[in-house]
């Protein structure tokens, strides 16, 4: 029992990342009808926003520390981050340590700009072209973005730790009546899951309860009619693209402490999130989220030693296997609507 709960918990963080990326993909697909292979690159950009911010905050200059001297008796020169100078050493230090959560604020404008630039600058010219062309051009864009990041940040993963206050584990088992130490769960993963749940809930609420969301949903169902009502649906769809970019970017920011950002993480997640989208049902937001969590948890179950000893290697192929089976038995995916991409 405890092992099962543990695996479910383990699957949540990866499932959250899948669900967030797949949610964005589905938003873009459902509204604009574009298959965006550059969505993984947006996730990666988000993670590198966290890296950039932590580097920006750590910019320092040399000052003389009058209280300390080196062994020759000269005053010691120390590197002081500007942030510490402006806010005082203690608050400054805290700000630097909390660079990943602060990265959320930093990433939002950047991701909005990136999303708008992508949609206005490139993708809008591809609405009427075949899906294969959309895949190809966004695949090219993903390569370009990935190489730019590689040029500036290098090819190696960059460790981006969570704030020290949030490092450590929660003894989750005690809360639900197990012995201490049986089910422990790192705080940051828990935060990631909660964050993902809030973000997903936010997007759903936005679509469900605002006029803007209502119009967008109507536009997803029938773009032409909404346009005939005198509503500028294209502008709203552009904004939805930016929102999808922000969702992917924030998923990347918060994922940085779990897995050190590297330039090809976008591509790695992209393939899996496409599989997630297809399993969930192309164009179904709920399906994307559901499939994201289900596949994430399934993957973590498949990595249990008890399972891999019976079927070796199953942990690496389980998602693809499920995708193939689902596509062949339920061609529209778990919650797919009729008439999408058929």
């Amino acid at each position: 029992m405890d092992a099962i709960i543990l695996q479910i918990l383990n699957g949540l963080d990866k499932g959250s990342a899948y669900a967030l990326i797949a949610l964005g993909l589905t938003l873009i697909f459902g509204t604009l009808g574009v298959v965006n292979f550059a969505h993984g690159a947006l996730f990666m950009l988000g993670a590198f926003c966290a890296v950039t911010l932590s580097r920006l905050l750590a910019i320092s200059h040399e000052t003389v520390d009058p209280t300390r001297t080196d062994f020759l008796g000269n005053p010691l020169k120390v590197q002081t981050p500007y942030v510490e100078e402006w806010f005082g050493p203690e608050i400054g230090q805290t700000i630097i340590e909390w660079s990943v959560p602060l990265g959320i604020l930093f990433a939002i404008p950047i991701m909005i700009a990136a999303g708008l630039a992508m949609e206005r600058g490139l993708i809008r010219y591809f609405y009427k072209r075949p899906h294969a062309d959309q895949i190809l051009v966004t695949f090219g864009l993903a390569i370009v973005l990935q190489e730019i990041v590689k040029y500036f940040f290098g090819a190696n993963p960059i460790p981006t730790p969570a704030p020290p206050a949030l490092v450590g584990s929660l003894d989750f088992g005690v809360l639900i009546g197990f012995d201490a130490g049986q089910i422990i769960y790192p705080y940051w993963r828990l935060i990631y899951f909660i964050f993902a749940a809030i973000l997903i809930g936010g997007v759903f609420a936005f679509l469900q309860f605002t006029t803007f969301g209502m119009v967008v949903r109507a536009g997803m169902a029938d773009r032409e009619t909404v346009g005939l009502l005198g509503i500028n649906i294209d502008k709203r769809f552009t904004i939805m693209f930016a929102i999808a970019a922000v969702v992917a970017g924030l998923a990347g920011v918060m994922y940085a402490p779990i897995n050190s950002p590297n330039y090809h993480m976008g591509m790695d997640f992209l393939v899996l999130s496409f599989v997630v989208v297809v399993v969930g049902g192309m164009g179904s937001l709920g399906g994307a989220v559901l499939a994201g969590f289900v596949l994430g948890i399934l993957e973590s179950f498949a990595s249990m030693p008890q399972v891999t000893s019976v079927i070796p290697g199953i942990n690496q192929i389980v998602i693809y296997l499920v995708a193939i089976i689902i596509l062949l038995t339920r061609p529209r995916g778990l919650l797919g609507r009729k008439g999408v991409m058929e």
Partner: protein
Amino acid sequence: MLGLNKKDTSLFLIVLGMTLFAPFILNPFPVDSDLAQFNAGYPDLMQRFLIFGIFAIGFNILFGLTGYLSFGHAAFLGVGSYAGVWMMKLLTMNVVPAIVVSVIVAGLFSLFVGWISLRRSGIYFSILTLAFAQMSFALAYSVLTPVTGGETGLQLSLSDPRVLGVGATPEGSIPLTNFFGLEMRDSWEPALGGWLFTFNAGYYLCAVLMLVAFYVAIRIFRSPFGMMLKAVKSNQQRMQYTGLNPKPYTLAAFVISGMYAGLAGGLMVSMDPLAGAERMFWTASGEVVLMTILGGAGTLIGPVLGAGFIKYMENIVSKINEGILHAWFAFLPDGLEDFVVAVFYPFVGKGWHLTLGIMFMLVVIFLPGGIVEGGQRIGRLFRRRPAEPKGRPVGAPSSSAAE
């Protein structure tokens, strides 16, 4: 000639000439000149041009004709190369059985994958092929280690139980791949003045097979079968209304392109008997997509040009480092030199993928017909001026002879 019309014959002859004289064409600079690094006429790279050319020609039979975008073709290449190495381990170092078995195994595997994947079309098809390829990669990398060598890859060893031939040469090394005694590594290197040309046995084996593959592709393009595939691309529904079932045609195209990939894999291990799982990773499939689109999907010569272009960039442009750039722009004033080098540096050397990505995007956006269409446009531009009798630029003859 050979059942080809006049236009196709001239195209075929151009390709024939280009492949046979590649050691000359690709070595335009003397060995000790500064530009010698742009010489691509060494056997390893020339073989790659042809092998990836075959791979891309095969991919084009599926994508160019039917419009089904497969993101998993590298799996067939990988399976073919594993099969080839196994033939060398078990049977003989002669490359013929290895290549034949590679093609057959890849064909069977693609029959299986295609039979399942072709139930869906569009993006679903792409995702299905992607899923199969990633699964094959994961299996080859971990579970099937006894068959595939896992992380280290499958290589020959001194203890291989070779039925025809010996496990090790009298000197105690692993025997070399050969074609009925002619070793693939054999080269004839005549030096003419400052130039050095390499005529390599392996390259010419690849060349012959590439020409055969190219010829078969032309015949497929011009056959009723090829017309069916084009019908699938233009309007599958209408085709069904006329009473034709598109499925057998697309499946046949899928298997043929899989066999081309297997041939490429078999040739790859014939030149260098080592097969690794990374060959099957989905980005490797992406590469063949890039090749085909860059060159021109749906054209005969396009994929070959695209393959040559990408492999040239990968091997030559990626070698341009900061020092070389400084040497090139040394004639500029210092500050300007640094600036120019800084501008160019991200696009060459390790950053060559950036150039590739940008070019690929530009091609998809502005030039859907790829290099071939670009050549045709330039050709047309010059032909419109009647006052200029010799106005045909380089590259125009090959392109105007294509589609």
